[in-house]
Structures are given as C-alpha cells and as structure tokens.
C-alpha cells in the first residue's frame, strides 16, 4: 500500500489514463481503516480477505474499526535488512547456546561434540559481527558502538557483550582445534559459556525495546522464545556434525529448546491478542509455521534416530533450519506490524478506554 503511494506510476497516454491508483479516491476518517472500502467494494468492517488466511489456532480478535491517516504507518519501520539482522538473531542464539554445549561436552568428556560446538560458536559469532557491521549505514564507524556504555540501549549492552564474547570463542575454538594451550583454552571456554546465555537472550530485549507492536508487546516471552530457539539451533549443530554416541546432550537440548520455544511462543500469542496477528499472517506467519513444522520434524527424527547417523544429520539440519525460520518469522512479523497502522492505533485506543473506564 505505502509502496504504491511512494512511487507514482500513473500516466496520461493517448489512450487515456493508465495506471491510476485507487489512492485518488482515498477517504479519511473511519473509512480509511476499512480495506474493502478502498477499492469501492462497499461498506462494512474490515474485509474478510485478510482474516481468512489466519490459521492454526491463532487468537480470535474482533474485527477492529479504526481511524488512520490515509492508512499510512504511524511509526517508521526498521531499516534493518533481514539477512543481516534476522541472520544475527539466529546466529547469536546459535553461538550462545553452542558455547554452553561445548563447555558441557568438554567437562563430560565428549571431545568431538566440544570441538564442533566451540568452532560453531566462533563461526556464528564472527558471522554475526559481520552481519551487524554490514547493516550499519556507516560501517566504517562501527567502533563508535564502544564509545559509550548505556544500559538503556540493549544494542550498546550487546555490543560490549559481543566484544568480550567473540574473542573468547575464538581462543576456545583455536585451542580445541589445534590442541594448544589447554589451560587458556579451558578459561576461554568457561568465559564464553558464561557470556553465551547473555548473547542468546539479550537480542530479545534488543527488538522488544522498540515501538514495533509485535515485538514490544511480546517482551515478557520473547527472551524465552529466543533462548529456546538458540538451544534448538545449537543442538542441531551438534547432531549435524558430532558422532552419534557423543550426542546424548544434544538430543536432550533439542527437547529443551523446541519445548521452551514453542511453549513461550504460544503463551505470547495468546497474551498479546491482536498484535500477534502478523505472527500467523503473511510472510512472517509463513516463516513461523515453517519453523514450527521443522522443529517438530527435527525433534521427532532426533529422538527416533538415536543410533542412525543419517537420521541424526537430517534432524540436525532441520533443527538449525527451524531456528532460522523462527527468527526470520519474528523479524518479518515485526515489520508487518510496523507497516500497518492498525497494530499501533487499535491497542493504544483500547488502552485509553480502559484507563478511563
């Protein structure tokens, strides 16, 4: 809708007017909230089109009538690219949980699992830094992130955490790969396992600390979705790359990850009501559904194929993909909720009404 407005494509030709947009007939007031009315399809509440696609037990929300300014968004949507930032949410979770898995594997004598987890954590950590720097409008100024420390800015807190975390994973991975400096390696492993949970969870505060309705409203459950999703990905990495006989903890972690993520997500969707719509609609909803299916398939394969190398590999890949799909889904659902003024205006109106009555 807004894209249409932003790029005028109408033209007067010898055959008359071409490409004229319905925006010319735009009305103000209550009617702007009614999609169906725009194209002259008659009066009524919101047209049924958008609602029909809502599936899988999403909370039923009464059709909302609302007023907006030509249906333009109230807030400016994030300028973040999905590859960089959704990718970062995914890689940060993978890295953080993998650091825990690696440290535990080392402590319990599972060297192969420890190695792949540490290398995976380092790889994901470095890639996430690349994504973060690449997403900046001025990448050459990335060090300005360390100019100040602000607890009011999850991005500032996160930058400092990553500045400590990624080098530690590097040392842990190098020591494990080359078998050098075991004591330093051990200390680095412990350090990265200490910071890992922070890396995996703070990104939830990062996206929730915005005016994006689907992100902000979900803030109490979002960190649990994120650590669950991170655990799912790290378990998947273990299953994909480590020998089956060392992967007991990975399988248990997959159960924990998938369970935590799905339970927290369901709870969030039920609680936030209308602003949860984008999580089951459009692009965001598609990714979320894909993530759910992949996690169930991956978890089933993990538990059924405990002795099968092939099944473990496939399940591991499915779990990693599930985690990525969930992050992309959350990212796009947030974008959808920022673009549609309904999600900003209706809950605020409801809130005002509750305060008054």
């Amino acid at each position, binding site marked *: 809708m807004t894209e249409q407005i932003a790029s005028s494509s109408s033209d007067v030709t010898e055959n008359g007017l071409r490409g004229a947009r319905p925006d010319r007939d735009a009305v103000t007031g209550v009617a702007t909230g009614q999609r169906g009315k725009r194209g002259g399809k008659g009066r009524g509440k919101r047209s049924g089109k958008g609602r029909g696609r809502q599936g899988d037990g999403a909370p039923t929300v009464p059709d909302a009538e609302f007023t907006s300014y030509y249906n333009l968004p109230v807030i400016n949507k994030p300028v973040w690219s999905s590859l960089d930032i959704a990718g970062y949410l995914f890689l940060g979770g993978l890295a953080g949980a993998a650091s825990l898995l690696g440290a535990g594997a080392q402590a319990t004598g599972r060297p192969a699992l420890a190695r792949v987890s540490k290398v995976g954590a380092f790889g994901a950590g470095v890639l996430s830094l690349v994504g973060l720097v690449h997403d900046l409008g001025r990448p050459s*100024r990335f060090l300005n992130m360390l100019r100040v420390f602000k607890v009011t800015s999850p991005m500032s807190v996160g930058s400092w955490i990553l500045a400590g975390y990624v080098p530690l994973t590097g040392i842990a991975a190098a020591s494990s790969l080359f078998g050098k400096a075991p004591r330093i390696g051990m200390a680095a492993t412990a350090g990265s396992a200490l910071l890992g949970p922070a890396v995996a969870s703070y990104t939830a505060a990062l996206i929730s600390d915005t005016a994006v309705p689907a992100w*902000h409203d979900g803030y109490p459950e979002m960190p649990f979705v994120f650590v669950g999703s991170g655990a799912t990905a790290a378990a998947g990495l273990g299953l994909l790359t480590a020998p089956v006989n060392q992967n007991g903890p990975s399988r248990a972690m997959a159960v924990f990850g998938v369970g935590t993520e799905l339970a927290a997500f369901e709870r969030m969707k039920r609680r936030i009501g209308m602003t949860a719509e984008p999580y089951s609609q459009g692009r965001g909803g598609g990714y979320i559904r894909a993530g759910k299916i992949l996690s169930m398939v991956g978890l089933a394969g993990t538990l059924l194929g405990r002795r099968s190398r092939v099944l473990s590999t496939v399940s591991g890949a499915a779990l990693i993909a599930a985690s990525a799909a969930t992050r992309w889904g959350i990212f796009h659902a947030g974008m959808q909720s920022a673009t549609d003024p309904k999600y900003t205006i209706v809950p605020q109106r409801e809130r005002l009404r509750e305060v008054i009555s």
Partner: protein
Amino acid sequence: MAPVDIQIGHRPNLGGAVLGDTDPATQGGYQNHPPRMGFFTDTSVCIGCKACEVACKTWNAIPEDGLVFTGMSMDNSQGLGASTWRHVAFIEQRKPMAAQDPGVFHDQDVLALAGQGSGTSPDQSAMTPTTPGANGDFRWLMASDVCKHCTHAACLDVCPTGSLFRTEFGTVVVQEDICNGCGYCIPACPYGVIDQRKEDGRAWKCTLCYDRLSVGQEPACAKACPTNSIQFGPLDELRERADARLARLHEAGVADARLYGRDPDDGVGGDGAFFLLLDEPEVYGLPPDPVVTTRDLPSMWRHVAAAAATLVGGALAAFVAGRRL
C-alpha cells in the same frame, strides 16, 4: 513573533520541588541551562501553506525527499522522515466546519460519553467526530507535524553511540559526526519521526534549529509560519498559552479541540513540541497513546536474565539427561 531572547547560562528560577523529574536538561546533567524550549502547533489556524516545510528544508539544507505525487490529498511528503522534518497533513472530512459546531445538538447520551472521556473504542467509533457526515458538510484539517522532543525520548535512550543527545534547551539532537547508522532510534520512536537517509546511511531528524537557538533566534519553521500556527518559546509559557487557546475554542463551541502532547504525565512525559488538534490524534497520523519503549526496559532486562538462567538450567539438565538419551 519576536525572536525569543535566550540567555545562555541564565539560571532559571525553579523551586526546589520542580527541579529534577520533569526537566530533561537538568536530568541530562546541565547545571545552568536556559528554560526548556519547544513548539506549540495550533492546527486550528494552520492554512496548509507548507511554508514551514520549505523554511525547514532551506535553513537546514535538507536534500530532496522524493518528488512524489500521492494523489491522496495536497500532502505529497506523506510523513516525517530523514529529509522531512516538518510535515503538513491534509485531511478532508464530511463534517461541519469546526467553528460552527456547538457540539451539543447530537442525539447522544452525553453523560455516557462524558464517562468515556475522549478515548473512543473502535467498536463505538461510529460515534467519533471522524464519521463521515451528511453530504454538503465539509471541513479541511491541516496540521504541521514535527519531532516531539519528548521528555523521555526513546531514540535518545536506545542510541548506542551517544550520537543522540539532550541539549541545554531540553531538545533532542543527532550528532551527525558520530552517528554510525545502526538504525535503532528509528523503530524506537513511537511517533515515526526519525529515519535513515539512504544515500547517506545516518539517521536524521528535526534539531529544533539548535544552531538558531544557540544565537537567540527562533527555529526556521516558526519564523516562517504566516498564521502563528507554529509558536516557539519556553515550554511553560507555551503550555499556558495553549490552555488559554483551548478554553477560548471550547467557549466558541469547538468541542472537538484538544491538546496533544501537553500532559507531562503521558507515556513520554510530555512533548517538547505539542499540538492543538481538532480531531482524534490518529486522524492526523499521530499515535493516540504513545509510550516511551524504555519504560518497560527494566522489566525486559529481568525477563532476559530469567531466560538466560533458564538456558543455563536447560543445558545442565541436558547433560544430566544426555547420558540416557
């Protein structure tokens, strides 16, 4: 309007009780600062001339923001953004002219309406002033929007580089030599004010003409406004002026008139730039109940800590259970 004489270093006479909480410059660490400056935009006298948009662009050397014909109204700049720091909204309504509406001859239960206040539920919005009226009724609302320079500014709170800062006038300004274009301030703003300039990479917004204020001049938009719809001055004074104006409009029968962003107890602690509107805020593209996102941040951090602990617990459990799986 005559330029306001700003005495830098002048210590405002604030009683002990007033100091602190509500004065952003004091909170920002300024000791001897000038009074908090802001805008009062009275949309009831806006004529939609866009002189403010032009003056702002000219003074601040803002690049072109898209040569777009929207076809929806006289509004082609559509909203505030990186290169649009003043934005004039145009709303056409099938409603009687505001000044001619006594606001009492409605077939409505006024006591029930009074109990409900100005907030209208979506299911009852058929009764709002925005409902299209009878043919022949027509009014045109025009309003010049701008950065609100919030008392509790989310953009400022979340900026990880310290590029956004609070000035001695209590306004919020981006230091473009520091901004690295992380874009965090953009979705943090509950009003959709600040945005990234694509070709430049950094975030930009209204500075309340910090440079002009610093030499005792009023901002370019207020200077250019031919009807005094945009009024600039010390916020305390503007609030008094706005209250008086609102009372006069109500007396004259303009029942729809209301102040937006004036209340220091709202979700952002009150706006440094506030408005007199003739309809619900969302009609103008403004959020009806904006809240600074960082109000919930302490709770967010607590949930993050709980989730991190859950992850550690889950991992420990995985290694205990992992022996049998």
